[in-house]
């Protein structure tokens, strides 16, 4: 039992860190430009497809990952310059509609290019086996994901909390007009943030590719989770995104793994088998509702 909990906790940590890669870019886009981007999940999907295609062409996972991330960042740059720049000054309605249109286009384009069947992405051969950690075996590849996630999170923290650019980004999230008045090029800053966000999306998509199926629609389900993370953490706050991601990742994974067992121990078998999966699937939303009730601005609001 403890081994199961430990293993699921590691899975939760891994899932949470990947969510963080998505939520970090998204929360800054929302925070600084007050722009809602539903197509963030599509960048994640396109990133995963590009990584899979590049990995297949180069016959190397790591080269594929690097190429896919770079290509998605480029796509993000093009999107920002051509479309999003026009959307910032529009209302939320236009932003939602335009990015919803982007989802339709990208899903259909992916289906057109790669077909409706999921694409396989194999983890690097050296990492495909399990590794012994503290008395039990855990897949080596998942450990690498955790390491990558921690490294990126640390890097982002340094970038946002310690560097000059990070200071501008935080200032932009807290008060955009004031930051512009102080002579910071918020427009250019935002292009940078958007491209960076797109690259993080592709990184998450590529790393998760071997674990999940790379398929059309993979972006939407994860997008909603990223939203929940941002709601819990507070819009525009990187720290909030990190805490929120870890909470959501752990609660969701542990809930799905342990809740049915726990319910079976306390409730009649019949009620437990119907209630267990249902409760596990909405656990994070209940959590979100609870946090929202006490802290409508999230745990770490950027605009105090």
């Amino acid at each position, binding site marked *: 039992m403890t081994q199961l909990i430990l293993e699921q906790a590691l899975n939760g940590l891994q899932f949470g860190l990947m969510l963080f890669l998505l939520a970090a870019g998204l929360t800054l886009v*929302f925070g600084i430009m*007050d722009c*809602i981007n*539903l197509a963030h999940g599509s960048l994640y999907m396109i990133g995963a497809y590009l990584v899979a295609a590049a990995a297949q062409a180069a016959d190397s996972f790591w080269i594929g990952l690097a190429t896919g991330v770079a290509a998605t960042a480029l796509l993000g740059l093009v999107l920002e310059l051509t*479309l999003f720049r*026009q959307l910032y000054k*529009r209302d*939320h*309605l*236009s932003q*939602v*509609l*335009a990015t*919803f*249109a*982007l*989802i*339709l*286009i990208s*899903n*259909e*384009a992916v*289906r*057109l290019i790669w077909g409706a069947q999921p694409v396989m992405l194999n983890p690097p051969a050296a990492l495909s086996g399990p590794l012994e950690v503290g008395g039990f075996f855990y897949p080596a590849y998942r450990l690498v994901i955790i390491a990558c996630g921690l490294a990126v999170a640390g890097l982002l923290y340094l970038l946002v909390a310690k560097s000059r650019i990070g200071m501008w980004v935080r200032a932009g999230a807290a008060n955009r007009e004031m930051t512009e008045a102080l002579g910071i090029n918020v427009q250019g800053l935002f292009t940078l943030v958007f491209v960076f966000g797109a690259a993080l999306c592709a990184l998450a998509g590529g790393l998760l590719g071997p674990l999940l199926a790379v398929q059309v629609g993979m972006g*939407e389900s994860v997008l*909603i989770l990223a*939203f*929940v993370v*941002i*709601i819990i953490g507070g*819009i525009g706050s990187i720290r909030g995104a990190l805490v929120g991601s870890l909470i959501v990742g752990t609660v969701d994974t542990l809930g799905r793994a342990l809740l049915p067992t726990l319910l079976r121990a306390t409730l009649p078998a019949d009620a437990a*088998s*119907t209630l267990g*999966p*249902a409760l*596990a*699937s*909405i656990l994070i*939303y*209940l959590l*979100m*509702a609870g946090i*929202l*009730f006490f802290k*409508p*601005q999230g745990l770490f609001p950027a605009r105090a």
Partner: protein
Amino acid sequence: MAFYHSARHREALSIGLIGVMIALPALLTACGQEFYIGFASRILIFALAASSLNLVLGFGGMFSLGHAAFFGIGAYAAAICLRSGITDALLVLPLAMAVAGLFALLVGALSLRTRGVYFIMITLAFGQMAYYLVVSARAWGGDDGLALVGRMTFAGFGLHGEAAFFHAVLACLGLSMLFLGRLAEARFGRVIQAIRENETRMEALGFPVFHYRLSCFVIGGALAGLAGALLANLTGLASPSLLQWTQSGTLLVMVIIGGVGYLYGGLLGALVLLCLEEVLAGFTVHWHIGLGLLLLTIVLYAPKGVAALFAKTHD
């Protein structure tokens, strides 16, 4: 955004239109196109769903992206009613509205504490919560959805004929539009629109802003539930995909294409989008690309929708 526009001067036009609509099944049958009676019912049902979203969005200024949850809950409520032997429309429809309205009350009470981007994301998240709940509930068919046992009846009359069902849907839509039109002109409608324009001022004038918004949100949810119950009866299935957030997106697209905050915006939008879907899907399975490009064009160049083209003189 403009106030809801009164359509009083177009009364004659409306009466003519209603006449045509009543005669539509007979006309389609005469042309040998019975298939399109069901399609017409579908348009009317989505018109009702889109209009209910338009009440919340255009009229109340609340940008809900979880509206499909109320739509789908209405469908499931109707399916469960029929399964447990309640078949009269006068019971099924109010029950579906009540259940959807109740869920809207819960979601609204929590979400309306927030504003802006937050509100959009939270309604989206709660909508998805309802979706996952339905998908994981094995008693309700899980992924496969809940099939209906027959169609509801109206005061002892069966609604199995497509024409009879079309008339029932038409009656529901007509009454709802009448209600929405009256609501927009009434004190409640004025207050809710004023809140949309300037919340702080209304708060300062002593209006209970939160309660007005919540009431508007619940009415919208209940009307969406009505539409969902009708759709389940039309297709014979309460499917989880009705609750999915892409469905909310589709309703939103209808409202925006039709015209946000125009009484007939939802109606026009549903008509345009569903007809467009029917035509485009005939050409290619990849018609979503065309739709997406069209939406982008609308957002960038005609953000006020179709209804605005007809109502230029009001602005």
